């Protein structure tokens, strides 16, 4: 198996689509294979799975309502810290007795959902525009590239804050703003790889044999060029989750009573002096999640770099 892959990697530019697709599977698989072998990837994946499972199940199984108040159990510290802690609330409670663990996990759900959805949107827009620009070239290319240049030089955070600040931030609006903030990066990468590929013999062969442009793009180019981008987009999920919680912290994210990391921490900041855990515990959760996602993404990125460097 290894020998086959190595010979494929060293093979001259492939001439027919079947071989090209084989090659693409093999590049994707090689990145996957090399990344999954690293310790960082395994730790990251294990943590992400545990956190995802906890976020999916614990709030339901424990039967604790993340917005239910309980004044008798207010401001309880996390386990083993302080003197009033209780097993019923492992991470303690906030100023009106809401359970911090359930709130953090529900926040994790929202954040993860928004992170994944906005990266999907980014990929869709960026890759579509990048592919079109790279494949057709000429005036289409110029127009698309000028738009990406312009967007890259706009301070997106100001735009995001301005738009969400003056309109009402709903989940779709947040996904849209986050998704629109980062696509030029993908458009540029996709354009350059499509450009490098479009002059190859197999693309010309497909054109001569009458395949339509959409068909060539969708069946030949995208399956070949998308996987490496997909792997590294994992890092962007973490970035978008930070962006989402930042907006929440500023009061421009998903609105209370739905708990998000951002609004829990913003709330907890007011009680920092007598209940430090309200602001810090959800943050630890968020950091743990982001670190695990980043470990996976970094493993993919390293694998891609060594494969591209070596092949």
């Amino acid at each position: 198996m290894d020998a086959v892959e190595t010979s494929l990697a060293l093979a001259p530019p492939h001439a027919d689509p079947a071989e090209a697709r084989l090659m693409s599977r093999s590049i994707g698989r090689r990145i996957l294979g090399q990344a999954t072998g690293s310790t960082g990837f395994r730790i990251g994946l294990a943590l992400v799975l545990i956190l995802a499972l906890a976020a999916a199940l614990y709030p339901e199984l424990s039967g604790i309502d993340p917005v239910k108040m309980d004044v008798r159990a207010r401001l309880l510290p996390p386990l083993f810290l302080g003197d009033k802690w209780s097993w019923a609330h492992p991470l303690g409670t906030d100023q009106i007795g809401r359970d911090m663990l359930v709130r953090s996990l529900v926040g994790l759900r929202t954040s993860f959902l928004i992170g994944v959805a906005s990266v999907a949107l980014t990929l869709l827009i960026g890759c579509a525009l990048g592919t079109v620009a790279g494949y057709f070239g000429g005036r289409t290319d110029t127009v698309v590239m000028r738009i990406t240049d312009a967007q890259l030089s706009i301070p997106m955070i100001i735009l995001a804050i301005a738009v969400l600040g003056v309109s009402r931030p709903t989940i779709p609006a947040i996904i849209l703003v986050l998704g629109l903030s980062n696509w030029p990066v993908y458009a540029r990468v996709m354009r350059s790889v499509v450009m490098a590929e479009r002059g190859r013999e197999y693309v010309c062969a497909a054109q001569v044999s009458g395949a339509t442009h959409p068909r060539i793009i969708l069946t030949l180019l995208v399956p070949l060029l998308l996987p490496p981008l997909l792997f590294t987009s994992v890092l962007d999920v973490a970035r978008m989750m930070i962006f989402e919680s930042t907006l929440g912290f500023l009061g421009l994210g998903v609105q209370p009573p739905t708990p998000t990391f951002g609004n829990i921490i913003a709330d907890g900041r007011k009680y920092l002096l007598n209940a430090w855990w309200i602001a810090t515990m959800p943050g630890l959760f968020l950091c743990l999640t982001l670190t695990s996602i980043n470990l996976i993404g970094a493993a993919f990125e390293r694998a891609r770099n060594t494969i591209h460097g070596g092949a």
Partner: protein
Amino acid sequence: MFVLSFLARRLAQGAVIVFLVSLLIFTLLRVVPGDPVRLMAGGMAPEALIEQIATRMGLRDPIPVQFGRYLGHVVQGDLGQSFVRPANGAATGGANFNDATRGERAEVIRLILDALPMTLQLAALALAFALVFSGLLGIAAGLRPGGIADRVAFAVSSVFISLPNFWLGIVLALLLSVKLGWLPAIGYGGFSYTVLPALVLAVELSPVLIRTLSGAVAAQMSESYVAVGHVRGLSRPRIVAAHALRNASVPLLNLLGVQFSSLLGGVIIVEYIFDYPGLGLLTINAVLQRDFPLIQGIAIVTSAIFVLINILVDLAATTIDPRLAY
């Protein structure tokens, strides 16, 4: 001569970008819901009064007309007056809106120029922290790929990139300011107030710097000129300091130009957390108060700074590596 034509072309491109940014932000602010006049006049103001004020301020004209008028003022250096901030500093707005006070409203350009030095001071200190820290770690990592420094650099950058700045700011304020009392945290009363926010920003900037620098140094050290340097009898420190680092600094410079945007995002959050009176805090407040002229002014000024920084970065890169001249 080359420098002049380069500057002329880049400044022209920059002007187009600033124009596009102002057009975009101007349109967006007027298209999305949220009426600043209602905020200024107070929730109780009758509909007729709101319409009257809005019409007098020109807010009911077609957007292209408004934009043309605005741009006419901007090219004369007039960014307009804030909707809500008076010149003397106290807050206005709410129920006491009347047109007589309009003359006393703060000039947008004044507000920005007052806040800008504070933010530049913060950004410069943060950049200095980040460069020293990432420089040491990144170069050590790049000189011995796979070694201990490389692993430490990888671990540090993985953790740093996962620390949300607003949370880190709160935790550091709690530890260094409240518990230990080493540094002041909230507001501004001297240079020491800049240190804590700058630390938070530096942590945010470091991961990318570390990775870029270690990658660039590692790439340079495997170039043939390094091997030739050994043959020529140059010492390793001399090869690294005089040759490899010089070449490795080009990707770092380019990165700094691109990083400006994320630095700006960090500045907004960090200034908000520490109540640091710079451009970031001004931005947040402008948005929360729907202060259109101020938001527009900030967007124009920041994109102009962004354009200028990128031109400077390219000029510096060409000085280091003359092959980049085009």
